[in-house]
Structures are given as C-alpha cells and as structure tokens.
C-alpha cells in the first residue's frame, strides 16, 4: 500500500471519507432535522425565533469575538457549578440553538456563561448594558474588569434634545455633546437581553435521561 501510488491515495481518501462521515455527517443525520417543540399546554412551540434585531446583534457578538471569553452552554446541574452560579436551571440542549444563525457556544470562561443572561434576576436594563459596554465597568464594581468597547458609541454634538439613550454622566452638560450607542450597540444590547432559554424540554430534564429521545412527546 505504501509503494503503490494508487492504493495509497485510495487510503488517504478513505481516511477523509470515514472521518467526515463519522462526525459531521452522522451528527447532521441526528440533529439536522431538529424541530421546535410544541407544548400543548401553552399552545405554542419552543424555542421561539429571536426577534430580528437580536439576530443581528448575535452577528455583532460574533464579529467582536465575545466568545473568546464567554461560553453560551450551560452544563448539567451535577457537572460543575453552572446552576449554582445562576447560569441556568437546566443544561443547554441542541434544540435551544436551532434558530440561531451563528451559535456562540464558546470554549472559554474567562467571563461568565451568557446563555441565559437576559433572563437573570434582577435584569440589567438597556441603559445599564450600554454603560457597561462603553466603560468596561461591571455594575456594582468600580474597577475596569472588562474590555471596554468605546467604538460601539458615537460621540456627537447635541442637536435639539439629548438622545433618549445617550449615556449619562460622561460629558459635561455645557459641552453640548452626547455619547450615544450606535446601531450595532443597540442590536448587541437587544441580543444580550434576548438570551434566555428557560423552557424545559423533555430532553433537558435531568432526572429522566430515557425521555431524552427525540420526539418522545409528540
């Protein structure tokens, strides 16, 4: 096989085909047709499609590489401290992501998991998030513990009224300037607020792994 060029290439090709079909293809077969889960009791299906503005915000999140420091995948309550930290009551499942254009699972937890950050209690309002993204200061703290993203904001003169979403306390009133979130910042904020997968799918119920079969509840 090593000497005969033809069989050598057949071997190489076989390695590729086997590797490709054993993971990408098989996974696709298993998950490619995953549908939302219809709940008779609530007469609606889950997950719901994210609003367009949040879907665009996900692209901003992806572009800025927030996933370099944040995961969006909650692990099982008995595997790590995810639940205890309030990142989610149940583990994330494949169905959570079916409507996401670019799921941002992430591989690094330099910062907290954000899979359910929009649903956290008490929630941070849009103005608070804007303040945080601009300054890098997490609410309740004084130090800059986060990379700031000042380029997501416009520093522009006030024409007429001060914009409703202008950041407060950053510029002198008399300077007649204001710092306002750009369109990208607004979509990113909407995205962060939309992050919430609270619905309990049958496959996400930790106690009964047998029920995890696809479509068990049809």
């Amino acid at each position: 096989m090593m000497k005969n060029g033809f069989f050598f290439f057949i071997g190489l090709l076989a390695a590729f085909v086997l590797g490709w079909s054993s993971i990408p293809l098989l996974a696709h077969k298993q998950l490619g047709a995953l549908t939302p889960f219809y709940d008779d009791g609530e007469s609606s299906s889950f997950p719901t499609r994210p609003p367009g503005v949040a879907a665009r915000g996900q692209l901003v999140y992806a572009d800025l590489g927030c996933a370099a420091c944040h995961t969006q995948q909650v692990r099982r309550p008995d595997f790590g401290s995810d639940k205890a930290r309030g990142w989610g009551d149940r583990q994330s499942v494949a169905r959570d992501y079916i409507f996401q254009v670019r799921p941002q699972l992430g591989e690094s937890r330099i910062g907290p998991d954000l899979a359910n950050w929009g649903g956290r209690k008490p929630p941070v309002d849009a103005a608070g998030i804007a303040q945080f993204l601009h300054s890098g200061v997490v609410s309740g703290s004084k130090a800059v513990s986060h990379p700031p993203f000042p380029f997501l904001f416009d520093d522009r003169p006030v024409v007429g009224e001060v914009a409703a979403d202008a950041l407060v306390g950053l510029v002198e009133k008399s300077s007649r300037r204001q710092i306002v979130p750009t369109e990208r910042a607004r979509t990113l904020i909407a995205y962060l607020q939309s992050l919430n997968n609270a619905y309990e799918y049958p496959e996400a119920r930790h106690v009964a792994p047998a029920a995890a079969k696809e479509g068990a509840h049809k």
Partner: protein
Amino acid sequence: MSSTSTHAEVTAADTAGRWPVLLLLASGLGWLVISGIFALIASIQLHSPTFMSACEWFTHGRVSALAETTFVYGWSANAGLGIALWVLGRLGGSTLRAQNWAVIGTLFWNLGITIGLGGIATGDATSFALLELPRYVQPLLVVAYIAIGISGILAWSGRRTEGTYASQWYAVAALFLFPWLLIAAQTMLLWSPVRGVLQPIIDGWYVQSVVSLWLAPLALAGAYYAVPKITGRALPSYEFAPLAFWTLLFVGMMTGGRHLIGGPVPAWIPTLANAACWMVLFHFTVVALNLRGALTGGGTSLTFISFGLLAYLAGAVLDAVTSFRGVALVTQFTYFTTAQQQLALYGAISMLLFGSIYFALPRLIGRPWISGSFVRSHRVLSMVGIFLLVGSLAVAGLIQGTELINAKSTFGEMAERTRPWLLAVSVAQVLLLIGNILVLVNFLRSVCGLWCSGVVSEVGSFRQPTTMEVHAS
C-alpha cells in the same frame, strides 16, 4: 556534533528547486513574527483589559483570531509546505517540477491571507475557530493551495526510487488531504451552513483535522527526513511506521469532540473522542520509537526536533487525560485548554518545523547559517519561551478551573489569582517574538548571501558537511 552529518552535501535537486522552497520558508517566518505581535497584544489584554481597547481592529476577540489565523495559515502552512516540497523533491530524486505553479500558488496564498486578515480586523471574520478567514478569500485559498501542492504530488508520483519513506507519506497526505478538509468545512459552515449546534460540532471536527491531518503530518515529514540524515542511522522500529501513519489519519480527526464534553451535543461525540484519544496514542508511541535517535543527538536541528518530539508526546497524553469527564470538569473552558493548544501548535509542530528549517536551509543555499549566535539565541529563547508560555497557561488554567467550580468565587477574584501567571504569559510572548525576529533576520541575511556576496555556490563546491551545522552550545 555536526560531524555526524555525513550526508550533508547539496544536491542538484536542491539548487534547481530552491526558489519555491525559499519563498515558502521566508513567508512562513515573516508571518510568524506578525502572529507573535498579535499574540502579544491579545495576551496583554488578558491582564489589562483596556489595552488597545479603543481600537476596534484590535479588540480582544479579533486580535485573538488574527493571531491564530496568522500562526496557522501564515506560519505553519507556508513553512510546512516548504519543508514538504523540499523533502518530496529530494526523495523523488529529480528536480522539483511545476515550480512556477508553486511560486504563483504561494504568492496567491499569501495574498489571500493578507486580504483575509484585513477582513478579520475590519469585521468580516466568520467566527468559526480556525476558519475565521472571511468567505471571500476562501475559494482563493483552495485554488492557491492546490497549485502549491501539485509540485509535491508530481515529485511523489514521478519518483525514481523503488521504495518510499515515512517522510513522503506524511508530506503527501498533508498536501492531498487539506483541500478536502477545507472544502468540506467551507461547504457545511460557510456556503450552505448547517443549523444550530451542528456548526460548533463540524468546526470542532475541522480544527482537529487541521492539526491531525495537515499540520502534524507536515511537521513529521521534515522530522522523519532529518533525523536519520543527521544521526546517520536507520530509524529503529521502522516496521511499525506505516501502521502509525494510518492510525493518525483514521483516528486522529475523531479526537476533536473532547472539547464538547458536557455540551449541548449528542453524548457519543465526546465519548468517541475519548476512545479515539487513547487509540491514537499508538501513533505517538511509534513516532517516539522511530525518532528517539533525535534525543541523544546534538546540534541545532536535533535539539529543536527533540523538543518538538517531547512536546508532541506530552500533548497527546494531556489530550487523552483531559478527554475524561472528571478531568474536563476542571480543565474545560479554562486557560489549560489554551496551554494544550499552544503545546501542540508551538511546542510540537513549530519546533519540529524549526528543526527541519535549520537542517534544510544550508542545503538549499549551499552555505551555513550566517549567524551562529542568532541561531543559539533563537534556540534558547524559543525553548524558554515555550516552557514559560505553556507552563503559565497551565497553572492559570488550573487556578481558573478550581475557582470556576467553586460557585462562591467571583470573576474578579479569579482574575486576581490568575493575573501573575497571565503576566508571565506576556513575558513568554515577548521572548518568543524576539527569538522569531532573530530567526527571520538570520534567514533573510543567509539567503541574501546568494546574491550579495556574488559567489553563488554551485553543486560540489560545498562538500564539507561540518560547515553545514551550527555547533551546539
């Protein structure tokens, strides 16, 4: 120890086929320096979050992507291809064919990388690990790669020798397989994207395949060629080499799912990865047996290759150990994973490539490296740098992992505790950057000697192997 290199003469094939190879190696080293600058910025941002934060191009997520892309597609690809073409040309027994294709392919490959890096910096990155280069340069990369690869494939299929060698298998496998991987990943992730978590699953498969089926084979091709040449001895346990080769190819790419332990994916993916991680250890054992002669030899090339070999083995063992759920509970999502990645890409693959480059260049230009002290400094800086880089990341990762498990500990405390180690990582990046600037300058000055001194050494004018190697210590 250079006296052992008895086969160090320059062959006709070297002289006639050197330009594509030199171009590839020079491009690789150039990108290595650039990637070092990006990596330094990214590492400083981990302990000083405001560093360059006002500059959108270099926000942490983007500059990390730039560093990774430049390292893999700039440095490793160019250097690895250069070594692969050189090895295939030499072992094929005739002058490298399709040289123009290789040169044009290299120029377009690097053009594609340059445009792509600009795209990442300005917001066009795809956000897939190791596939960050924007969609619009991806087709160009495939075509350019094939143009480069043709030269090597022709050298293999037109070889004049009866038998074949392990370095040829690895080189041909890397040349042949990468376009398939890239096209498969592009199709499923960029052209007609799959949905939901299939994206990270397929991206994880691609990342692992890039390492197992492309970069590692490129690096091994050079090592399998250089070690017997330098030691002057046949490789021990060589009869197992074919099996080890096929093990890597068939099992290697299944190990990638270890990063998805506990994630929202079918459980068989990490389970399969765990089994594969242990199976593939067979490949590593055989490589260690085959190349163990490097450990007892001296000289610059062998020192780099030994280091690379040990890192290659250590990386495989760590991958296997951390593919268990119980261990991943601590190491997953932490700097420890980064440490493992750096151990593989820098400690193993890059060091093996350096070893091959130190071996190849004198034979390509017919004269030794121009500065011995630069060579020695580079050697010390890279070894110390990698130790410090991987070691500090690993310690930081273990601290981070234990803090993460403890739900009471805050991210502020975690940053506080890991900070000294992250500072050490930045120091390591500085050392590595200096070392890489030295090797780039040394390389360019040595190659310039071909024109500047006016005396282009021809075949035969240079038959004293001792002058080829830079002396150890």
